[in-house]
């Protein structure tokens, strides 16, 4: 499973991982919000933001290849979702696809949406590549997300891995008995594995609940961590916010 490796760069020490997770999370939000707030046609400012993201990726030691591969999935979604712009934006027709006329304005809007998305997505990929899930949870906690939310995210996170493990074991067991060669048998196998997986998920949940009770659980998962900000994080975040602010301001003045 690919998500097994989601937090693989968290262990790499870099200028980015030396900031507190909350600063990383806020930085990501700043970049995403900044790119979303750019007026249409502000290509230069967009390029500046994109360059900034690439530099941050570099500082975080996230290889460009990795960045590219990880953004592809969500990027395709954005691509499909905004393809409508090509034909919906009125303007001079550039070329026709069957009955659909693609206007040059439509093409530009479409390209701009993709550009903005790639800034936000790359920033998000850098965040999850440099920040482990537990750290992200601390960040959420620091930003005062309700405790119920962070606590259930925490328990859910472990449960997810346990279930994936279980599904993989079921699948391996079925495969090792040469199951699933024809397409109908494979479909039936999938149904079987899903059903077995679900029933295991339920009994797993029950056993985990008992394990919690055994250790004095009384309806609340108490938080252990509180983390302190340091100067470095503040400085990094302030610089990023300034950069995005300047770029945005410039873009709005120019347009």
């Amino acid at each position: 499973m690919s998500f097994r490796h989601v937090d693989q760069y968290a262990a790499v020490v870099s200028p980015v991982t030396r900031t507190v997770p909350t600063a990383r999370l806020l930085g990501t939000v700043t970049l995403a919000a900044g790119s979303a707030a750019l007026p249409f046609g502000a290509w230069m400012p967009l390029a500046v933001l994109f360059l900034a993201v690439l530099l941050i990726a570099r500082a975080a030691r996230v290889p460009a290849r990795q960045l590219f591969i990880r953004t592809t999935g969500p990027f395709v979604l954005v691509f499909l979702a905004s393809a409508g712009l090509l034909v919906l934006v009125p303007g001079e027709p550039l070329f026709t696809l069957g009955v659909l006329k693609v206007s040059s304005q439509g093409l530009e809007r479409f390209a701009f949406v993709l550009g903005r998305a790639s800034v936000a997505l790359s920033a998000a990929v850098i965040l999850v590549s440099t920040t482990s899930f537990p750290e992200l949870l601390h960040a959420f906690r620091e930003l005062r997300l309700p405790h119920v939310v962070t606590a259930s995210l925490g328990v859910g996170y472990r449960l997810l891995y346990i279930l994936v493990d279980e599904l993989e074991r079921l699948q391996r067991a079925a495969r090792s008995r040469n199951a699933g060669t024809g397409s109908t048998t494979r479909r039936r196998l999938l149904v079987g594995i899903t059903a077995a997986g679900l029933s295991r998920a339920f009994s797993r949940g029950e056993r985990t609940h008992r394990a919690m009770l055994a250790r004095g659980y009384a309806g609340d998962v108490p938080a252990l961590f509180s983390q302190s900000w340091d100067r470095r994080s503040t400085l990094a975040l302030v610089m990023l916010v300034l950069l995005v602010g300047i770029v945005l301001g410039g873009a709005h003045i120019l347009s």
Partner: protein
Amino acid sequence: MEMLVVVSDLSYRYPDGTAALNGVSFAVAAGERVALLGPTGSGKSTLLQHLNGLLPATAGSVAIAGITVVPSTLRDVRRRVGLVFQDPNDQLFLPTLLEDVAFAPLNDGVPAHEAAHLARETLAELGLAGVEHRAAHHLSGGERRLAALATVLVSRPAVLVLDEPTGDLDARSRRRLVGLLLRREETLLVATHDLGIAESLCRRGVVLHEGRVVADAALGDLLVDRALLERYGLAAPLE
């Protein structure tokens, strides 16, 4: 002698009607190490969950340090009984080991920084210093076992109850675990079908079969009783 664990005539039926325990009685003295032996499905796990009040007795009773296990005493009982589950994954449900180990002290009202300190100390005692910020799925099977053990040792329970603690361990991790347990002073109750582990940890054995105690004797005597071991599926018959 002061009896720390007293199980009297305990019976339990699962909601689906399976009679898992049928009048189990035995007692464990403070400081004793007892192996709970029995073939698969004999009721070992079911019995252990009663020691912690996780399952309510259908008939009979359990008392820990003189406290009868009833809903109103669960808090006190659970503080005294440290139960390590058969599958460590059931026990490690938080994002990092440190949080998992600090879970019980926090529930007990220990302030966060102190709970974190206790958790670190316990993990270090078990040789897990350095992995405390990892998630359980980034650990090996053996480390996960030790981590599950840490989650209950941190509360300094009077009785340590282990369900099949060596299930998926290799010989070396097994020896390590035995060494660790032998150095501890807690009263120990270990459910297992691994006679080797039972022998290296315990002096006394209680054999369970179809929810009944069928033998309760010095382990040395039990282990040479070939007929008994074969009858209850604890040893394969000789060819």
